[in-house]
């Protein structure tokens, strides 16, 4: 059965979705992530905050191995999704990425129809039947709160949508392959406040089904929607803990300075 390939190969037991241990990452000689250790619980939103260039996106991309594409990028330490070491030799990167979806800072829909955008992932993993694809498209759009808006425009180009719709389409596209984890890299930074609100609301609903790791520039956003927060500075994970606690009584002075707006 070809369908099985990559669909269900991931062991995802236990309470923790992502376990990072002593992770170091280098871009050439540049040490971008320094000895990172963190455990992200399942069915929760983990927020990564910190000033620009501190390594948030880099960390996110180690979780779906999108860093593999960058020349000179070197990683030591271990990253486990569920029980699985994702940097082990035998890991099928494609299956990994099916289980760990990603939404980017700028909406990046493919220049094709809404339907084809969402069907792209399932088709990659061998779904060909029209009825099955239609079902997946409908469910994904519903999950992204887009079905009502787009059900009559499935065959229009995705590029004709508004920015906020495009970003939710990208979320729907990521959901269509039924990932266990969804990575979001500043997903609202290019959007207006109303679209931002819709996406924040969506995150709250989605975490029933998927574990969310979100990079955000916006501390209020982190405080509003996340369960756990990690604060990064110059490649170090300065502080990581429950969101409420971290914002109310940060243990580190740097965290304090950052969340009170003294730099960044």
């Amino acid at each position, binding site marked *: 059965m070809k369908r099985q390939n990559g669909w269900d190969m991931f062991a995802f037991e236990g309470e923790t979705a992502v376990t990072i241990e002593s992770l170091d990452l280098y871009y050439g000689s540049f040490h971008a992530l320094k000895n990172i250790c963190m455990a992200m619980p399942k069915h929760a939103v983990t927020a990564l905050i910190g000033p620009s260039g501190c390594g948030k996106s880099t960390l996110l991309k180690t979780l779906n191995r999108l860093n593999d594409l960058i020349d000179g990028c070197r990683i030591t330490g271990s990253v486990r999704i569920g029980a699985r070491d994702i940097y082990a030799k035998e890991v099928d990167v494609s299956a990994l990425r099916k289980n760990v*979806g990603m939404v980017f800072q700028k909406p990046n829909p493919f220049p094709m129809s809404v339907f084809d955008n969402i069907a792209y*992932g399932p088709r990659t993993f061998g779904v060909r039947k029209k009825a099955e694809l239609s079902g997946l498209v409908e469910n994904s759009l519903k999950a992204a709160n887009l079905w009502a808006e787009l059900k009559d425009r499935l065959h229009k180009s995705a590029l004709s949508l508004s920015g906020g719709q495009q970003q939710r389409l990208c979320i729907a596209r990521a959901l269509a392959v039924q990932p266990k984890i969804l990575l979001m890299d500043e997903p609202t930074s290019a959007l207006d406040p109303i679209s931002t609100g819709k996406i924040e609301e969506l995150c709250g609903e989605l975490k029933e089904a998927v574990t969310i790791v979100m990079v955000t520039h916006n501390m209020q956003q982190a405080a509003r929607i996340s369960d756990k927060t990690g604060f990064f500075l110059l490649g170090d994970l300065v502080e990581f803990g429950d969101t409420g606690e971290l914002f109310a009584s940060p243990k580190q002075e740097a965290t304090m300075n950052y969340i009170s707006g003294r730099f960044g």
Partner: protein
Amino acid sequence: MRDAHTSGRKRETAAKAVFGFAAAFSVFAVFAIIFYIFYAALPAFREIGVFHFLFGKLWAPDKEFLAVSERFGILPMIVGTLCVTAGAVLVGGGIGIFSAVFLVAFCPKKLRAPLSHLIHFLAAIPSIIYGFFGLAVLLPVLDKLSPTGSGMGVLACSLILGLMILPTVTGIAKDSLEAVPSAYFEGALSLGASREQAMFGTVLPAAKSGVLTALILGTGRAVGETMAALMVAGNAAAFPTGLFSNLRTLTINMVLEMAYASPGSLHRNALIATGAVLLVFILALNGILGLLRHKKRERKIRPDRPPTPAKSQKPFSEPVFKKRGGLPRTLKYLSAVLSGVVLLALALIVGFILIKGLPAISPAFLFGPSGNAAASLRPAFVTTGLLILTALAVALPIGIGAAIYLSEYAKQNSRIVKVIRLFTETLSGMPSIIFGFFGVIFFCELLGLGRSVLAGGLTLSLIILPTVIRAAEESLLAVGDSLREASLALGAGRLRTIFYVVLPSAVSGIVTAVILGIGRIVGESAALIYTAGAVMYTPQGLLSEGAGFAVMMWKFSGEGLYLDYAYATAATLLLFVAILQALVALCKRGLTRGKRA
């Protein structure tokens, strides 16, 4: 599960190898061309002797009572080539640089785009039309000026070749002028220089190496031009002695005598050896270009320091032109006048050919039967169609594959990319006639295809390959990385990403490549005469001979009887070229609009 995983990985590896091979194809092609031309020329060098061949003053292959070492000398042709090349660079290079300056600095904004389009159009006009224009319009005028009563020779050849290289020079000089940091221009203005002083005193000198590149590329084009030179040079294998003295270039020698040099004969080998000498010239020019580019890059590596008046930047502390007005103003008017001359030349060419050619076009002439009794363009339509199909069938997959390798797999600016670019550029700088000779040696003889449309099409595929690679690569690189990331993040492999996301977004660039290739094929003559043939009948298939429009036109204009036909063919060709140019412009516009979305 594991099986699908490894088989997927194998497929990815195999694909990478295939694309890599496509990318290396230009390198093979360049080596093959050099190797086979020299290999086939070897017997001639050996029998005649390199020294006697290069410096012999007499070319008389049929004077068999003379020693071999005495009757195969190409010095007159080397001198002829150098003469007309110098003339062409003087005419086309000079005017080309001035019109580039005009376009960049003095041209009213509204005229800039249309003028650039016209210059592109000038570049797309086939050589055979330039030659025919020279023959039919320029020569009668020069005849009146010439003391001998014949206008053929050095002057006519220089003017026509100059006109032909002009768009190359203008295009590249314009790019390099536009690349000069605006700080130079503004810096000069802030010191009280006028616009024209700033342009000629500061910006033009700053663009020196780009302008030099433009001139060298123009030189290469002039050295290798065949058909246009053939029609106005007079073709006597003697040393040129004045503006109106007949001459023969290396290329003319090759194309003129190949028709009656029997295979295997020393005569034919000597013609191929002429090609080898031409190739040495072209490769030397390429070498100079490479050095120039190397030097430029070295200079760029140093941190960009915008010139400050305090530093001893000459144009600033000590303006080249002391007085306002004066020389710079004269140069400005000169640039405007010379740009006008270019437009006039273009108008003359197009005007003459359309006025004389359009009335001669009739349905019977276009599509009627063709043979010894009547001539029509039907064979040209069929031949050209077959040539396009063959050439695209080979060049498109290889070219797109190479572009995919360069943009999707290779590290940008890595050594391998540089090598492939260098060879692709070398390939694109080779003269048609060299491709023609290679086609004869390799496709017709070695592969045994004989003189056939297939051999012609394969030869053309090499000619259009660099264009396809460049246009496809450009459009692939224009596709945003965010789309690639989106696809990969969904678990798609590289291949799927390339074929379902990247290539569809690059379609307009690939269509541009196809159109540019077709334009080149439609107007090609020198590469086809001896590979596809110069017959008047309709080819029955890929293995029979056939002549396209340009070769037909050459036949019509050579046999004085058919001058009307030649005009009509020229008009047809010109219309094709105009339509293709318009399509390219549309595609480009689509491309920029797509990027904005």
